């Protein structure tokens, strides 16, 4: 379906990525409206349950953004997320959820450009994948 607009949930860490999104806003740079953001203190706070929940509630993609490795406001929270991500991705395949539907990346407060690029890329990707049949 061509007019399909994917729903993407984003978990953004308070210190880097959420700031990055804000600076994109302050620069009044447009990016896809598909992304809806949940603010967490640290990407390390992202419980896989949240990601599964998002898919269950109808998200077609889930995006997690944290501080760059080494820059985590809490030292290593982003690494903990990276560890979970590595297993979760593999497990989601077993549920028939394509790996492109879950993405983890690093965006610093200053990287509004990178933020916009990631959101645009992911939206395009998921749009091409089509909707994830909603769970009842």
């Amino acid at each position, binding site marked *: 379906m061509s007019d399909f607009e994917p729903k993407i949930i984003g978990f953004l860490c308070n210190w880097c990525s959420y700031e990055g999104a804000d600076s994109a806003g302050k620069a009044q740079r447009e990016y896809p409206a598909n992304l809806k953001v949940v603010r967490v203190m640290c990407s390390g706070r992202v419980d*896989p349950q949240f990601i599964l929940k998002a898919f*269950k509630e109808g998200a077609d993609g889930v995006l997690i953004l944290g501080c760059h490795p080494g820059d985590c406001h809490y030292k290593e929270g982003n690494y903990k997320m990276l560890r979970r991500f590595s*297993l979760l991705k*593999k497990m989601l395949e077993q*549920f028939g*959820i394509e790996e492109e539907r879950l993405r983890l990346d690093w965006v610093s407060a200053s990287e509004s450009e990178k933020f916009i690029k990631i959101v645009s890329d992911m939206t395009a990707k998921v749009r091409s994948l089509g909707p994830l*049949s909603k769970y009842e």
Partner: protein
Amino acid sequence: MSKPKIALYWCSSCGGCEESVVDIAENVLTVRELADIVFWPVALDVKYKDVEAFADNEIAVTLINGSIRMDEQEHMAKLLRRKSQKIIAQGACAHIGGIYGLANLNKKGECLDKAYKEVPSVKNPKGVLPQVKTKDCGRELELPDFHDTVRSLDQVITVDYYIPGCPPNPKYIVEAVLAVLGNKDLPFGYVFAERRSLCHSCHLVDSKPQDSVINKIKRVHEWVWDPEKCFLAQDMICLGPATRGGCEERCIKGNMPCRGCYGPVENVEDQGGKFLSALASIINSNDEKQLKKIAGSFPDIAGFCYRYSLPTSLLKKKVG
């Protein structure tokens, strides 16, 4: 006045729950003093008609085990719900979907074709499958329908209380029945087991270092581990941390790791997701390549994380 009525019933189950009822042994007599067992397919000759004949809520409590896969199971569950004041889901299948729930990672058709057409021992040139309605030389026969997915009991009817486990601990079966018969005031959805996860009572917990890490997943057939050391501390998959206690560590005492049959602890929505998070968080690497390698050493992640709870997981089944 007559004693309160108890019923027991099975849906898609293996009979192990029945065995564990038999295993309450001497307590059977106590229960019989307190109540009349009015319906128990395995042991008593009571007809379905008689169940229909009961007034609504006439049965004080019904223990139902097994998951829901066939339409008649759903029908019967609903009937018993109507007839019973309280429904207790007994055993992992009724509680969290059970091991048959792994079939939710496959399509219904795949399961049938595999068993009746593809396995090497079957000779089925016409490729026939069991039918809901069929005629054999004009003789009409019927079979119940096979649903698309396995569901836990509370995905079909309202369940008041739960007795987890595969098999359930007879101790809790007695406790549950006595509690209900004694009109003990219990919160809706109460689970008859420990509140904390298995580790709290596990004798191996002391052997787990405070900075325990996972270096690679080791499988049970690959090596001989230290029976006196926490499995996770030995890079092995043990669902203990994410699994409600109450089984008395039977598997651990058999020197094998926990597979999670008691289901999640309260406040946990998704046992597998939680276990995955706990395990992944302590993986001993921050390097993407190495993490990929370690993830690679973990086979069938879904099958381990949701060994018993797939139907009640957030995702419930394979997409589509």
